[in-house]
């Protein structure tokens, strides 16, 4: 529209715009206030630490997923890769007899490799990311069962340390904060992060501008694999063992967190802070429903409605803003 003669007048603080742009955050605050009123068990130190621990796994998975979704893809394999990485780490320690720190690093490398394969299949093999990672989901889960023969494996002390405490603070929360800072730094400050937005927004324009689109895609999936591995190790560390069915279905939580956080599944939009809030929304709802003794069956129904509501509101917001 014409800009010179008919410019809009600016107002000091537009609370409507603020609400519209921070819907997930507002929802989270409202949710917390409601739970504080509804149950005295919500606002206790122990419960908040619980929430912190629970959110750490979902959020770390979802940070990796944010990279992929911003770059215009989807990664269905993160839950299975998390399980495989933890299981591999346990195997490195127990069966291969590697030192604990190498077992931990080995687990991360397995996640990274799975991600590289996903990315290569997408960028060079021309498989849609949905299909490539669906295949990886099955392969990784299958390998997890093969390695473990369907039984849990004890983790190295270094991995268990990830599930422990530093003083009063649970380690998963420390890791979560570090992972958020690193992910946010990558997305906001690095060439790689800025390129992800370009690739997700318009891959052809990015390519014609000289961005190495294929390499970027491989790196993006590799990062998702690495973050998945970290989440898997966090989960295993808490239990002191890698479970063959660990993190099953977590990819859907991760996607939901990213989308509630305001990212667009068509790519080019998304933030780590949004994803973090999205993960908190999911975990706080589950926690609150548990405290209120709502059955886990009904919890699923509620979570589904929340996802639909959050994304629906977002779509509506974009529509009104664009017209």
């Amino acid at each position, binding site marked *: *529209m*014409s*800009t*010179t*003669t*008919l*410019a*809009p*007048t600016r107002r000091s603080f537009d609370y409507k715009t603020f609400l519209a742009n921070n819907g997930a955050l507002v929802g989270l605050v409202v949710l917390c206030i409601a739970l504080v009123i509804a149950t005295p068990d919500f606002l206790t130190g122990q419960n908040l630490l619980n929430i912190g621990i629970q959110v750490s796994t979902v959020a770390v998975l979802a940070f990796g997923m944010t990279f992929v979704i911003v770059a215009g893809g989807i990664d269905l394999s993160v839950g299975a890769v998390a399980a495989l990485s933890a299981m591999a780490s346990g195997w490195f320690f127990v069966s291969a007899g590697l030192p604990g720190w190498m077992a931990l690093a080995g687990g991360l490398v397995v996640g990274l490799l799975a991600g590289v394969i996903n990315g290569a299949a997408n960028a060079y093999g021309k498989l849609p990311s949905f299909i490539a990672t669906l295949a990886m989901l099955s392969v990784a889960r299958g390998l997890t069962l093969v390695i473990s023969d369907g039984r849990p494996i004890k983790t190295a002390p270094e991995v268990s340390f990830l599930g422990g405490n530093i003083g009063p603070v649970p380690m998963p929360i420390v890791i979560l904060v570090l992972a958020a800072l690193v992910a946010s730094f990558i997305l906001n*400050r*690095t*060439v*790689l*992060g*800025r*390129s992800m*937005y*370009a690739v997700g*927004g*318009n891959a*052809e*324009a*990015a*390519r*014609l*501008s*000289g*961005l*190495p689109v294929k390499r970027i895609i491989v790196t993006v999936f590799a990062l998702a694999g690495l973050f998945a591995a970290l989440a898997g190790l966090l989960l295993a560390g808490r239990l002191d063992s890698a479970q063959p069915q660990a993190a099953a279905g977590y990819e859907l939580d991760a996607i939901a967190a990213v989308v509630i956080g305001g990212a667009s599944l068509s790519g*080019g*939009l998304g933030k780590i802070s949004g994803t973090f809030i999205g993960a908190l929304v999911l975990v706080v709802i589950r926690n609150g429903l548990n405290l209120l003794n709502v059955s886990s069956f009904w919890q699923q129904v509620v979570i589904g409605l929340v996802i639909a509501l959050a994304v629906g509101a977002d779509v509506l917001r974009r529509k009104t803003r664009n*017209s």
Partner: protein
Amino acid sequence: MTVKPLITLQNVTKTFGQVTVIQDVTVSVYPGQVQVLLGENGAGKSTLIKMVAGVYQPDGGQILVDGAVTSLPSTRAAEEHGIATIHQELNLVATMSVAENVMLGRMPTKLGMVDRKELRRQARAALALIGLEIDVDTPVGQLGIARQQLVEIAKALSINARVLILDEPTAALTRHETQALFAVMADLRQRGVGMLFISHHLDEIAEVGDTVTVIRDGHFIAEVPASTPEDELVKLMVGRSIEDQFPRRADETPALTEVLTVTNLTSAGHFDDISFTVRAGEVLGIAGLVGAGRTELIRAIAGADKYDTGSVTVRGAQLPKGDIQAAIRAGIGHVPEDRKGQGLVLDASVNDNLGYATLASSAKLGLADFTGQRRRAEAVAEKLRIRMHTIDQPIRSLSGGNQQKAVFGRWIIAASTVLLLDEPTRGVDVGAKVEIYELMNSITAAGGAIVMVSSELPEILGMSDRILVMRDGRLAGELSAADATQDTVMTLAARDVAAQR
């Protein structure tokens, strides 16, 4: 005028939030007439059209259909009044057949199943209305843009449209296809269909229009006959007179340094044995019909596509095949044909879009150079006079001309010295066009070289120092700027073409 208008927008006003985009504009469409809507990008043409089509409702003023005040709360309501819109982005389902597309939403059925025979019959009848002879079973996606457009017109007519809104229908058509469209329009006019026509090609106005409504910045400026001289129309539209539509200033003494050398370049099925050189300070125009292989050639030089044999050399150094990054390092900048699909990341900011080509090269240790990028972007936006609120607004919200300037700006920041331009002013209004031409002048004045592919002959003739003409993937000839005329270029471009059609 004794004939009553089919539809009138009377003193309509439309605001979005605080922004008034249309203020007190009146425009009518009469039966059997072509009403031209003229204005720069962002003047409010599309908002007006959307009011006629029932997408927007006016905030002030009224809409009269057959003289009676009517509200058009939806596109459906507009259709019921016989108003149909042919959008720039066609509303066809590429994978479905011509017949299915024409009858979409009202497929004839028999016992609850689609009656294929009847479907074909009705579709053929609709196509016959505009004399379009194509197999109705062809998937629409396999037709060219021109024919897709005609299919959409046939569809509109088959639902008894009396008012046809044509939003830049000729933007993607060749001269030949445009003529075919105009023939259809002339026929519709005979049959009393009223048309609202939008085009950035001023020469088409006199050819096809009856009356011209000029709007500028959302205001009604004038209603003039379509026979009004072009420079008069431009003056009304832009609000000032544009001295020279093609301000090419070539160097007095052409430099002898060859900047870009293309030798025997061949890509099977696209182009064959192409050789040419471009010197510093020169604009080389490449003319030809759509499908002559011009875009494919440009893309191959830019490294966007691979080629089979031959070589591309920039300042003596041969470029590797299909390597965009190497081409950029050698100084090549590519302004692709499809701005929205290939040039820009529409949801990203103006700042980001200006910086993609230099994102990696300006970075330190993998960290993006934010302050430097913003400084460079602001400087270039100022230099190119990109009109925007802030450099952080999504580039989607800029007008076509300003978007295109941003694609140029990306390569200016990258200090590119060889610009490959593919339809550089497509969908760009007159004012911004001249600014883009001035930009080309400043690039060549600084010793840069430009290769420009364009389907607009006046642009090729007005801005090139030398002209290559391509036909069926081969070089059909080379003309100096002095020798080239529309006729000489078209003779080279179109020889034998009539036989193929």
